[in-house]
């Protein structure tokens, strides 16, 4: 199943600059920062390590799958986002990431679910009317 929204292209706007990119295998990947001194990982990226203050840091690709820490479905909207919509926190091995969810109506969410990263339309830019893109996670098929 395709993991990048069909309308997304190189000139599309991201909600959080530099937070996600298309990897060599055409799948999206989240970009964080890993500290070379203490191995602390943070998302989104930062110029220095908040754990040991070293600036010996570099971009790191985060895991594409993780498990659902918790979630909710919001029934009241925010500017540019049509309710209902789901969001929560995903645990990706070494970092907890806030995310919206997609395909949560088809496969209802439960804490502990395995989820995978997709690049999706997040909202409409209230000023330009153009879509803004970013990360979402979706529930994975039951394990075999």
């Amino acid at each position, binding site marked *: 199943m395709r993991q990048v929204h069909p309308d997304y292209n190189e000139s599309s706007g991201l909600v*959080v600059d530099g937070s996600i990119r298309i990897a060599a295998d055409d799948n999206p990947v989240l970009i964080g920062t890993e500290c070379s001194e203490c191995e602390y990982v943070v998302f989104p990226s930062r110029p220095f390590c908040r754990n040991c203050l070293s600036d010996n840091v570099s971009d790191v690709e985060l895991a594409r799958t993780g498990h659902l820490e918790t979630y909710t*479905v*919001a029934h009241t909207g925010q500017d540019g986002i049509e309710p209902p919509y789901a969001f929560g*926190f995903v645990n990706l091995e070494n970092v907890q990431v*806030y995310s919206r969810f997609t395909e949560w109506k088809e496969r209802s969410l*439960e*804490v502990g679910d395995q989820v995978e990263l997709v690049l999706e339309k997040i909202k409409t830019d209230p000023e330009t009317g153009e879509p803004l893109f970013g990360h979402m996670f979706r529930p994975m098929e039951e394990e075999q």
Partner: protein
Amino acid sequence: MTENEVAVINVGQSDFGELEGQRVTEFGSRAVREALLSSSVEPDDIEEAYIGNVATTAQDQTSVIGQAILREVGVTGIPVIRVENACASSTCAFQEAYKRVQSGESDIVLAMGVEKMTGVPTEVTLKDMAGAADAEVEGAMGMTFMGLYGMRANAYMNQFGNVREELADIAVKNHDNGLKNPRAHLQLNVDRDDILESRPISDPIRLLDACPMSDGAAAAVIARGEIAEELVEEPIYVDAAEMLSGNYLEEVEFWREELDERVAQKAYSEAGIGPDDLDVVEVHDAATIGELMHYEGLGLADRGEGASLVRSGDVMLDGRTPVNPSGGLKSRGHPVGATGVAQICELVWQLRGEAGARQVENPSIGLAQNSGGALVGEGGVSTVTILSNR
């Protein structure tokens, strides 16, 4: 530093609700006026003032809101400091005032909070509130405050089992208490089914699990203990005043009030008491799950056992440890910058036996817990203040 005893001389509160037609300076000064008139403190006796407020600057009112309010009650020519720390702003103002008196810098200091939330465009109010979370990812990608409570509730119920009905019972309890508080915003006679059938806001949180947006102000005059003894018959002593931020570098356990646990521990140790010694408690019930998790964070119940306090009736007005006799944020209302000092007002009235129809039986030690904001799902600030009538 001289360690002085600090006591509340008197308190005042405006009505909470939609104060249509009242300027923020009007209901703000009403709260201060009440606090001054009910003691023999003159405007000139106030040496400093700390004011909690979140939104007046963003609402294009004034960024010197403290001075504007105090001018209305003749309190002028003193240091006036505004404290902004999301929904805990005025507890933080109170704690700053407390430190000034405790350190011996001043003898009599005013702490207050004020907020105007109705009658301004909803998008402005929502923007003020969204500013209390991380704006870079969560806020930009649709997280809402009730969403945070929804996430907490789902994590909690996954860990400990279904407490949906007990959450509704917390809302019913707080509305019952609020009906006995003439200054409470939402005067609602509701039962469990009303809560469970109200419209969903952020699963599993429903409309009647959530606090309203209110206008209101609250004020407290505090002083060095021996001065307070001269000025009022029954000073209410401040036995602990603590606040902490979250542990943002560690993973959040959404089913646990870890921040509360840390700040409560500090406060209990400062006051030399434990949770079993409390006679009356006010907590930050912006949503019902918040109140339930604060029971556990404050040690009133073990982790996962908060709902048992609801089932046993321990937290009811006539229970072992009544929680939110004022009606809490749920019913009294939540004018964000005023909520913390409003909790202090309630404790002072309760500890003096002046709480009328909602008076709990003969309390001597009270605790107020007030939360503000969030980053990556963890609290921005939690405060615990312990008061006693000695």
